[in-house]
């Protein structure tokens, strides 16, 4: 057998397992009405509501564009941070993670499939937001698709790392959803996830200035509202990377496959 043939024989099952697990994750996600509603539909509903409330200009563009950008940010945090954290806690505490460990599915394949599945959900959500905005409020499609995709990938990665770290800090399935939303909703509010924060008191804006979502929304604003490349925002990228790396370190150090409550 040639080296190439051996490599294919080794790699194919890995790819097959990855595709199998990605399909499993998608099936599990969409089959759960709560997940599909709170993670996928809820940000769309909020956009429809908030889009009808805001009117006027923000940074020289119609404010509804900014509302759309904010909700892309909220959607990202909601899906990659909150949704992932809650799902991970539930699966750990229900014993699914432990059960999967005794199958031939490699741990890395499981994690990557879960992350890609989460990214897929968020990608569809972002697409739905832009389509809704176009239909309801006449918002334009992004001019620099490449930069927008890169932005969404960077944000998703940072929030997924933070979501995983948060999941490992939560001890029980009961109340995990409340705990995560206790972090998510104020963060979204303070970071401009629910619309521009220009009218907020200085104290609230100061708190918002340390939150990762603030910088992600800034990044989306720059790319979507003004057509800048994502690389033109080094401050936002740096802060997001800092949060992401901190989340990753905590996630890797504290990762647990087995239920905490025994």
């Amino acid at each position, binding site marked *: 057998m040639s080296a190439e043939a051996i490599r294919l024989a080794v790699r194919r099952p890995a790819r097959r397992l990855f595709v199998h697990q990605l399909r499993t994750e998608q099936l599990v996600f969409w089959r*759960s009405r709560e997940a599909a509603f709170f993670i996928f539909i809820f940000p769309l509903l909020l956009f429809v509501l908030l889009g009808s409330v805001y009117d006027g200009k923000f940074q020289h563009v119609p404010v509804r564009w900014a509302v759309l950008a904010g909700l892309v940010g909220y959607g990202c945090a909601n899906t990659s941070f909150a949704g992932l954290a809650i799902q991970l806690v539930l699966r750990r505490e*229900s*014993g*699914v993670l*432990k059960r999967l460990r*005794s199958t031939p599915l490699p741990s890395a394949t499981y994690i990557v499939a879960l992350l890609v599945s989460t990214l897929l959900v968020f990608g569809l959500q972002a697409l739905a937001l832009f389509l809704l905005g176009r239909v309801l409020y006449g918002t334009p499609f992004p001019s620099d698709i490449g930069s927008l995709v890169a932005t969404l990938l960077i944000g998703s990665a940072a929030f997924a790392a933070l979501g995983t770290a948060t999941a490992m800090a939560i001890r029980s399935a009961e109340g995990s959803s409340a705990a995560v939303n206790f972090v998510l909703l104020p963060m979204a509010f303070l970071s401009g996830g629910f619309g521009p924060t220009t009218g907020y008191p200085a104290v609230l804006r100061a708190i918002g200035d340390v939150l990762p979502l603030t910088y992600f929304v800034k990044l989306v604003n720059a790319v979507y509202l003004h057509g800048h490349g994502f690389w033109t925002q080094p401050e936002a990228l740096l802060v997001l990377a800092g949060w992401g790396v901190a989340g990753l370190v905590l996630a890797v150090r504290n990762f647990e496959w087995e239920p905490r409550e025994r």
Partner: protein
Amino acid sequence: MHAIEVSGLRKAYGNLEAVRGVDFTIEEGEVFGLLGPNGAGKTTTVEILEGYRRRDAGEVRVLGHDPDDPGPDFRERIGVVLQSSELWPNLTVRETHAIFAGYYHAPRDVDEVITLVGLEEKTGARVKSLSGGQKRRLDLGIALVGDPDLVFLDEPTTGFDPAARRAAWEMIRSLRSLGKTVLLTTHYLDEAEQLSDRVAVMREGLIVRVGTPADLTTTDLQTEIRYRRNGEDVLLRTDEPTRVLAELTSAAVARGEELEGLQVRRPSLEDVYLALTADEAEVES
């Protein structure tokens, strides 16, 4: 080749020594029961063999692998039923089996396995709609779908009603006829007695007795002979029931008496088990 070889196995959690030097061997095709009260170290032992925990000391071979550092096919060849797992509540029985089948190189036919565990009428039912007993069957089904050589069953019938237990026992017996090696942990005596070729009794992290259920009951305790004489109950314990009984009955026949309420009772596994684990039971109560 032995399916499982364990010697000098030790595991502590902090100051608590859960397993304190355990040795046993399980042959291929054998159903081996690990019996003991809660906290005896059964689950710790099994989870070390499954690869979930690292041992502190001792030698362990499972299907020729060291479970701390198993080869790539180790997980292809084992099937695990954990004490509790919830799986995905919104998927169906068939979907769940198909997902697990997809993890293995050469899985069994999904519908065949569903029939084997008796869930054929629930194929399209969501997992959350299943009863406790049916969920346990699902656990067994997904443990068998990869066609393992060795199956770990950790307290497979805890919390079952009697009918569900009987049904589970039938399934476990069918594993033996498939030629699987089974390691069963339980704190139910009748379960160990009914299902196992050999039983190891664990107590406080040690195996205190190993043997067939029949071995355990014949070697340990004396046979009891009971009868009534002049209205009083008489109880004799003996290692030589045949001789004692012959003397007793021939004397009675010679006197023309009937031995009222004559009973000869071999100790049950329960008696042996209670004798072996008595101290601990006292400590707990």
